[in-house]
């Protein structure tokens, strides 16, 4: 009994010490996160405009309820910029595949056992040689080609000498290089005339133009139809897998519906974006027939029972991938259709950032390049090192091929990593695009590369509409929050599956 006050004093003292330790962090969190967050929530429901309210102007603010959100949803630009954001996010599946392939590649050891001194010698000579070439030939086309060849050899030999660490570092370089520097570099690479990308493409396109010119008549239509058939094939593949998984009780109804929505998007857009409306308008009909057949097949067998949301992760990953491929085929088919006509006058490389239709793909390509070697690759590398060797050995003993070992052993074991990467990439994608828009295109041409985050910036700091900008930010937050909820709900189950 007599120790109680002493114990309480000690507890209080410990509490004060604990708070003291936490205070800097807590104060920082309050000042720079929580209070601005609450303030922006308040702003989103007010008519806060810099012309009405700032430290010099203090006109009374008005509560406007949901007006800002209503204006936002009625504004065509918002939907356009959301579309831009989602378009850029279509690169995510490719990024994930790229990161996985890079990780698998980099988990191998490239080091050669002997002759290291000789290799170092060759590498050194190549390095000096490249520098000399650059000095002598200048940065002209020949000099650049020689230099690049030298650098490639240097990288290969460096890998042989120092092992995969060299490649891991090189792959990770884009991630720790300052963003603006990378963007400016890509802007130069994309320069329509004289840029390295178009310099590389020009002879290829010349060759392609020559090839296309000698193609038989109606080859344009054949390419278009081939692309649509392949799109149907991908749809069929997706539906077939979905049907089997559903009937076997591996996928529940909710993931099936969500997957169908994703697979249905290219079907919906084909008549709208297709090159030949007379043909493309029948695409949804053909897709409907495929769907109907699959439904009939599904209903003919007795389904194994399973929870409604079973298999969510697998279903979404597969559907997103197939959707991206379908869209890619849609675009390729359109290009193929117009190709003979374009080739008649010679094929010119794209104008990339200056052309409305190419600006977004140009940004997407750059993002994919930057993301393949990012943290995603490191996560996959860590995930690969955790795959139990016994499982691989067991599969090997069972006579599984390399691909079968990957598909049935490695890939399922990487499920937690994949799911985490997908969620983080989607969240990052929704919030991303600001730096690129600011540094490379100023959101143009004609708003083609304006993403939601850049929209928030322009509304707040160029137009002074703080309330409206806050409303956009909160809508963005709502989207990210929904994805986080999705993660909580299905993440652990996907991993356990």
């Amino acid at each position, binding site marked *: 009994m007599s120790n109680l006050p002493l114990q309480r004093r000690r507890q209080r003292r410990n509490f004060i*010490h604990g708070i*003291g*330790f936490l205070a*800097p962090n807590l104060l920082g969190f309050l000042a720079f996160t929580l209070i601005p967050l609450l303030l922006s929530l308040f702003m989103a429901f007010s*008519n806060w*405009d*810099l*012309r*009405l309210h*700032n*430290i*010099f*102007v203090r*006109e009374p603010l008005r509560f406007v309820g949901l007006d800002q959100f209503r*204006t936002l949803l009625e504004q065509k630009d918002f939907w356009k910029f959301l579309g831009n954001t989602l378009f850029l996010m279509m690169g995510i599946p490719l990024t994930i595949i790229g990161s996985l392939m890079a990780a698998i590649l980099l988990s191998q050891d490239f080091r050669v056992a002997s002759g290291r001194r000789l290799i170092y010698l060759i590498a050194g000579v190549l390095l000096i040689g490249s520098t000399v070439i650059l000095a002598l030939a200048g940065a002209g086309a020949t000099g650049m080609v020689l230099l690049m060849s030298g650098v490639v050899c240097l990288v290969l030999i460096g890998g042989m000498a120092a092992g995969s660490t060299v490649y891991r570092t090189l792959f990770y370089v884009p991630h720790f290089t300052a963003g603006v520097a990378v963007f400016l570099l890509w802007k*130069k690479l994309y*320069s*329509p*005339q*004289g*840029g390295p990308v178009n310099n590389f493409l020009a002879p290829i396109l010349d060759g392609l133009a020559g090839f296309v010119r000698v193609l038989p008549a109606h080859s344009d239509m054949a390419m278009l139809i081939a692309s649509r058939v392949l799109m149907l094939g991908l749809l069929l593949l997706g539906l077939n897998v979905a049907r089997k998984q559903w009937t076997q009780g591996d996928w529940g109804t909710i993931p099936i519906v969500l997957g169908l929505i994703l697979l249905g998007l290219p079907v919906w857009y084909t008549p709208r974006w297709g090159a030949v409306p007379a043909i493309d308008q029948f695409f949804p009909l053909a897709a409907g027939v495929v769907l109907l057949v699959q439904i009939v097949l599904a209903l003919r067998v007795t389904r194994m029972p399973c929870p409604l949301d079973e298999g969510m992760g697998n279903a979404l990953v597969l559907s997103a991938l197939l959707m991206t491929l379908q869209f890619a085929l849609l675009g390729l088919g359109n290009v193929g259709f117009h190709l003979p006509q374009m080739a008649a006058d010679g094929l010119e490389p794209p*104008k990339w*950032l*200056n*052309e*409305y239709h190419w600006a977004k793909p140009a940004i997407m390509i750059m993002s994919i390049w930057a993301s393949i070697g990012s943290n995603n690759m490191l996560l996959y590398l860590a995930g690969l090192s955790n795959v139990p060797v016994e499982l691989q050995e067991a599969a090997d003993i069972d006579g599984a091929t390399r691909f079968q070992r990957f598909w049935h052993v490695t890939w399922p074991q990487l499920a937690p990593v994949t799911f985490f990467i997908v969620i983080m990439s989607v969240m990052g994608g929704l919030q991303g695009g600001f730096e690129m828009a600011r540094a490379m295109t100023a959101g*143009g*041409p*004609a*708003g083609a590369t304006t993403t939601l985050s850049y929209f928030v910036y322009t509304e707040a*700091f*160029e*137009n*002074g509409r703080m309330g409206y900008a806050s409303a956009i930010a909160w809508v963005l937050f709502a989207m990210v929050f929904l994805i986080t909820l999705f993660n909580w709900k299905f993440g652990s189950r996907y991993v356990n599956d």
Partner: protein
Amino acid sequence: MKYIFLVSFVVLSIAGIALTLTRSDVVGDKPIVYWQTQPSPEARNRAQLFRQWLAENGRPDIDLRIDPTSPNLSKTIIQGVSGVGGDLIQINIGADLTYLQEIGILEDLTDAALEHGFDTSTFASRAVSETTVNGRQYAYPFQLYVLLLYVNKTTFEELGLPLPPKQMNFETFERLGREFVERANPPGQPHRRFFAESVNYNTMRRSLGLDVFNETLTACVLDDARYERVLELIHRWTYDLRILPSAADISSFAATGGTPFGPRLYQFKEGNIGIIGGGNYLMGAMRQLGTIELAVIHQPAEEFPNALFGAGMLAMYRGSKNKAAAYEFLRFVASSTWNQSVAKVGDGIPANLQYAYDPDFLDPPNYPNEAGCNIVFVEAVELIGVPYSYSPFVPFSISNKIDNDAYQQFMAGRMSAKDAARRATELINREIERTLRDRPALREEYERRLERQKEIDRLRSEGKPVPLEWIDNPFHRHYYQFKGWVAP
């Protein structure tokens, strides 16, 4: 651990306090003034000149520091409303001045201007609307500019072509442009050399009597066949006749050499572009490239010759902690020393036009290749310069962006000229409605102007003149005078 933490905390706190107390503006013996401007050798030279001027006039020394900023206003806005703006703010168009005044970060300089002898009666009359809001002066114009076209005379001579005349209508511009590109480019090859870098669609539509806003600035009126004509012409010149480079061509220039004003001047000097647009401030940059034989002409225009006019201005931050010292710099800007320095350097037109007729400014002795250029700029300021029009009912940043976006959409082939004109009109008018909804205090003024607009429309439909004071739009004020539609 807790003692390590405590010691770290104390050390950091002491270091922070020491750093604060030893800051140069705390311990220095002279006041520091921050001048928000684009960093350039000229700005640094003027800061040096300011100190000399202070010494010569027996005034206490001031440490003038350049706070680098870009022409984009966002940095100024963010710093200003956060209470950490530069003491002196450089502004390049009146629309920005109006916006900064609306957000309350500018000091009223009317009384200071009277005291310094630099009020609105002393500088170019066309700059008055740029520097004032509701009759109060918020900035000192430190130099003027008007956007005309430079001609590289050597390029035309080498091609055996006569120099373009000082004034051209659209048809003449097109005809000369076709001749130029035919001579300059090998037949059958894509054009790599262009007649002109660009034309100003604002000036072109104004030359047809059309502006973004109506007379009272209450509505956008771009949905008009005259604007469609301008759009279609520019498209034709860019993509069909290829006498103007496309955005992609201009982007390609970026890979082939540059100057402080971008690679365009280099292309101009090399003869790949026969004509470029700009103010007389470009001549300073061109001098760095060597000698270019120059002539200056007007933008292509039809009935109403005009040119976009503006003023480089200096305003004072309302939250400045060194206002007395900042006023000293404004006094310097109003002085003959400053105006003479503008005339001598030639990076603008002196705001006080009496200095603009200095023979050394009009025909710089060291640059005979520029002879006869500055007089065209000065005359343009006096005769045809018209500032941008901006409505109090929609921020210029928004109306300008909408206008520009519609133009880009049209040039990208995303919509027809008619749709672009209609879209710009609809969106700007929707923004006006939105401003009135968000700021009901403006409604009364809007209604008043609307009534006046109806009266103007009625008088014009009857072919009667209109009192000049009824017209708020600076373009229409000049246009009505030009047409003789102003009531005596």
